[in-house]
């Protein structure tokens, strides 16, 4: 499923998945405004509301009742994902709504997930932005991992930062676990898991070191796999100087502690206009183009749209 997806992704749209362990940190607002900012520069953008339990991108875009949504596609009432991508009030920006998604869809099975992924990479668009739900469920992690770049959102609060680390660790272990087609690697990992107590495997770096000790080739394969894990970070609701540093500090700490390269894409200031745009049901990027939040968002959009951009 993943290999097939990766081949298609090379020519398809750039896929960004926005997640983060905690609810209420602004994932949906960021997805919407990132989409609107990219669309404003002329790119064709599709937003996918994959927060299957609590979809609300349609509300942020002023679409009262989406005529079709993701569950129509999953239930095969339409043939292609593109058929449920509806236009919004923003030019160049379409929405695949998750509204009224069936409750059981909050946990799509393997086949459904694979089908969604294939269709996302076949969309005729420059960028697809997937808004993930909160939490670190396998579904969320899988969408996060298949994106061209998974983007974590944190706010400068200890609980949010803590959840972000938890999420990163879970995603990373999920990635390593999935990447073991070779029996040699699998058996080395199993041996480590059986022999080493969980306290000694607190970070991915510990796991790699232990596997390396058991079987050098398996360890090297894990290191190679790990180096392709390149999540990004957006800090939202920054209020003062210490908050401005948080993104880079988390990057440093991640590299030191987990051995993960976490790139900070930018810091978005706390801005009252954002709350106002939400109650007006239109993106701040449309209503308040000169607000500090939208300015900072534009910087992030430019980075993601850059032709030279590649995972570091």
């Amino acid at each position, binding site marked *: 499923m993943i290999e097939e997806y990766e081949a298609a992704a090379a020519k398809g749209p750039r896929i960004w998945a926005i997640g983060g362990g905690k609810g209420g940190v602004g994932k949906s607002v960021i997805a919407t405004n990132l989409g609107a900012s990219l669309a404003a520069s002329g790119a064709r953008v599709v937003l996918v509301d994959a927060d299957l339990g609590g979809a609300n991108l349609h509300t942020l875009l002023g679409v009262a009742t989406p005529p079709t949504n993701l569950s129509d596609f999953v239930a095969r009432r339409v043939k292609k994902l593109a058929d449920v991508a509806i236009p919004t009030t923003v030019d160049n920006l379409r929405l695949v709504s998750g509204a009224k998604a069936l409750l059981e869809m909050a946990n799509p099975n393997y086949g459904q997930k694979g089908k969604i992924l294939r269709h996302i990479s076949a969309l005729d668009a420059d960028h697809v932005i997937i808004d993930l739900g909160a939490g670190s469920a396998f579904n969320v992690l899988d969408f996060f991992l298949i994106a061209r770049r998974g983007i974590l959102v944190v706010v400068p609060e*200890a609980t949010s930062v803590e959840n972000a680390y938890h999420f990163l660790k879970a995603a990373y272990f999920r990635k390593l676990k999935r990447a073991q087609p070779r029996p040699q690697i699998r058996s080395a990992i199993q041996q480590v898991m059986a022999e080493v107590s969980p306290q000694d495997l607190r970070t991915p770096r510990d796991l790699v070191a232990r596997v390396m000790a058991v079987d050098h080739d398996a360890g090297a394969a894990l290191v190679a796999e790990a180096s392709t894990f390149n999540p990004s970070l957006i800090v939202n609701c920054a*209020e003062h100087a*210490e908050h401005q*540093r*948080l993104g880079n*500090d988390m990057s*440093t700490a991640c590299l*030191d502690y987990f051995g993960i390269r976490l790139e900070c894409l930018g810091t978005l200031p706390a801005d009252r206009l954002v709350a106002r745009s939400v109650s007006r049901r239109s993106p701040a990027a449309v209503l308040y183009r000169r607000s500090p939040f939208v300015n900072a968002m534009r910087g992030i959009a430019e980075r993601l749209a850059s032709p030279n951009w590649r995972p570091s």
Partner: protein
Amino acid sequence: MRPRRRDWEILGLEPGADLAAVKRAYRHRRALYDGESLATYTLLEDDERRKIQAEIDAAFRRIVGEEPPSERLGMPAEAYDETDGIDVSAATPPDPSHQPGLYLRHHRQHLGLDLQQIAAETRISPAILSKIEHGEREGLPAPVFVRGFVLQYARALGLSDAEKLANAFLERMDG
């Protein structure tokens, strides 16, 4: 003792970086792992933190060939901008309900910020900020304004107990 490759990694530097870069990186790393940084506060257990701090110090020693700067917690020397000889940078902060001003000063210095930086952030003059820190009533405006100043100052430092601090400060002004 010669530095190892790992020592440069610990400070996040390319081998052979110049002394100024080493000192900057050292301060940054020490501040990052000092137990107050939002980025590592929830990440590390105390023993892990102490181990990392010791590694950072050891890396500095091997690279520079001398003891790490004596200022605590990676603060730049400029942070010690006062001359009154009270070392409020000591590990235990002053009691916020008895010495709210000194408590603010402790946290400011802890972050390595000077009064000018706080003034730029809050638009409160450095003279007023200094009076607040030292609990001097002379020259401060009416309590209702002072309350706002203390709140802003505390929030600029990212303190969660800003309200309590402002109340404590006003109580002391009345007394």
